[in-house]
């Protein structure tokens, strides 16, 4: 089962520039969470802080009793073996072929024989659809393939926490759908805690149990999927609809004058799309049910009365859909 990740009062700045401040959230064990945010709001920095690659100035990231920010390197390195991180561009080792790249963590950290390693690596390459490409170098394949290879490398150690940095960027919509399904299937198989950083609404609305959003140096919201998707928060609403109505501007925040001007000329901003809340993805047939699903449902039940009417409605809809398709037990 995955490990719970607790983030407490995390703040990060590069020199005088604050990236985000006082971020507090909990990634529940085994659940899938998505971190949304416009480009340049420090989503990747947040991911790297969770794993201890970047050291925020204040706050803690607790994983199984280890503080990834302040604890000595020795402890952090040991804990990292339980993580799998999929980099934005794969970050494959350019001098090794795909097979050696994916086998790298196994060779470094386990005493498995080459035969066992071969079995595991080929199995993972099959999962991400790269079978037959073992001998290629990372420079010889497309960006999407590098990304999938990066995912395979993140999965070979059966991590308990999986972090994905923009799994969709550079992929076509069909491949994005496959990656979404793949992530859910992985979660069903190994029950790992997952955090996906993205600005793809398709992934955000169908994959996760929880959604958070970073905007303008703050964590605007973090909560169950349906709560965010029905949120009245202008920033969240604008982002999910993907149009120009709202506080998100081309650079950062729009100023008051700009907002007023837009209010007067609202019809030039393009149509306002209603937010459609699709049912959550299920594991592929033949895989076990996600263990986190029941835990998440119980956690949501506990706070259900405090949620908005729309969110409660969306949660009931989703459960009805799950039950029809053989869902919750």
């Amino acid at each position: 089962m995955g490990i719970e990740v607790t983030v407490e009062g995390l703040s990060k700045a590069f020199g005088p520039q604050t990236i985000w401040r006082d971020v507090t959230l909990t990634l529940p064990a085994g659940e899938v969470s998505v971190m949304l945010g416009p480009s340049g709001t420090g989503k990747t920095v947040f991911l790297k802080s969770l794993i201890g690659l970047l050291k925020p100035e204040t706050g803690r990231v607790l994983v199984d009793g280890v503080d990834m920010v302040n604890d000595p390197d020795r402890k952090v390195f040991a804990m990292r073996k339980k993580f799998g991180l999929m980099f934005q561009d794969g970050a494959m080792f350019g001098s090794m072929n795909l097979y050696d790249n994916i086998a790298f963590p196994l060779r470094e950290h386990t005493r498995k024989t080459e035969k066992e390693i071969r079995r595991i690596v080929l199995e993972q390459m099959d999962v991400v659809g790269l079978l037959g490409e073992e001998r290629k170098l990372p420079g010889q394949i497309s960006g999407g393939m590098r990304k999938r290879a990066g995912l395979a490398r993140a999965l070979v150690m059966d991590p308990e926490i999986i972090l994905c940095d923009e799994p969709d960027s550079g992929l076509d919509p069909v491949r994005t759908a496959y990656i979404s399904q793949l992530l859910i299937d992985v979660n069903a198989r190994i029950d790992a805690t997952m955090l996906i950083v993205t600005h793809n609404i398709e992934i955000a609305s169908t994959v996760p149990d929880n959604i958070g959003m970073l905007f303008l140096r703050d964590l605007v919201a973090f909560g169950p999927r349906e709560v965010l998707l029905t949120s009245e928060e202008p920033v969240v609403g604008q982002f999910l609809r993907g149009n120009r109505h709202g506080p998100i501007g081309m650079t950062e925040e729009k100023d008051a004058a700009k907002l007023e001007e837009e209010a007067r000329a609202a019809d030039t901003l393009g149509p306002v799309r209603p937010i459609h809340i699709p049912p959550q993805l299920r594991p592929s047939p033949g895989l076990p049910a996600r263990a986190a699903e029941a835990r998440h449902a119980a956690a949501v039940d506990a706070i259900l009365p405090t949620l908005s009417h729309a969110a409660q409605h969306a949660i009931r809809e989703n459960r009805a859909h799950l039950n029809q398709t053989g869902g919750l037990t």
Partner: protein
Amino acid sequence: MTSPDTSVPGASALRQTGRLFTLAASVVALTFRRPFQVRELIQQFYFIASVSILPTALVSIPFGAVIALQVGSLATQLGAQSLTGGASVLAVVQQASPMIVALIISGAAGSAICADLGSRTIREEMDAMEVMGVSPIQRLVVPRVLACVGVSVLLNGLVSVVGVAGGYFFNVLMQDGTPGAYLASFSALAQLPDLYVSEAKALLFGLIAGIVASYRGLNPAPGPKGVGDAVNQSVVITFLLLFFVNLTMTAIYLEVVPPKGS
């Protein structure tokens, strides 16, 4: 780690120096931590040896000859031609040989190491390695530094021999020196500690070349140009350090070890 903002002049130079020594200390510490990267060490050893043996040998023949010619003509003027052999041996073994080795290790191997590590750093490969719980210092830097040190020490022997042989050749053939006097003056002036200090210098210079190249490679400015600049700087910084360290070691050696016959 972020550094505090200070406006004291020279603070950033001190910070860099501190980081360089930190890296050196962790390389030494991680050398003794298992698992030891035997394969990587052998590969790097082979690579460094293959790029440096030939240039070193080619440089050391004329260098030994130049010293022999210069010392020989000076010694002839002073009427001490019989001591030419010993004098040029001391110059070649103690000064020229470790310097030649270090300059070529730094120029040929150090620049390659720095470019390799630098491009891996900007491609996030180092981050990826750290994320997988593998220390890039232990996995990549330690074998490279050890290979630099090892090749330096071994090459130093080669250069000493080739340089002395070159000196002998030119002295005997071109300056009408006598083979017997040349060889006899070896033992009149040279002693075993001269060879020891030569090897100690080669070891330290190899260490400096490896550490500086790795340090610059691990901390390049962003972008491909950053890597190019890092390689450039690593060679220049190594050269500067080498000459200072050489001066210091020579001064200490001359103080500590009495010259032969005194």
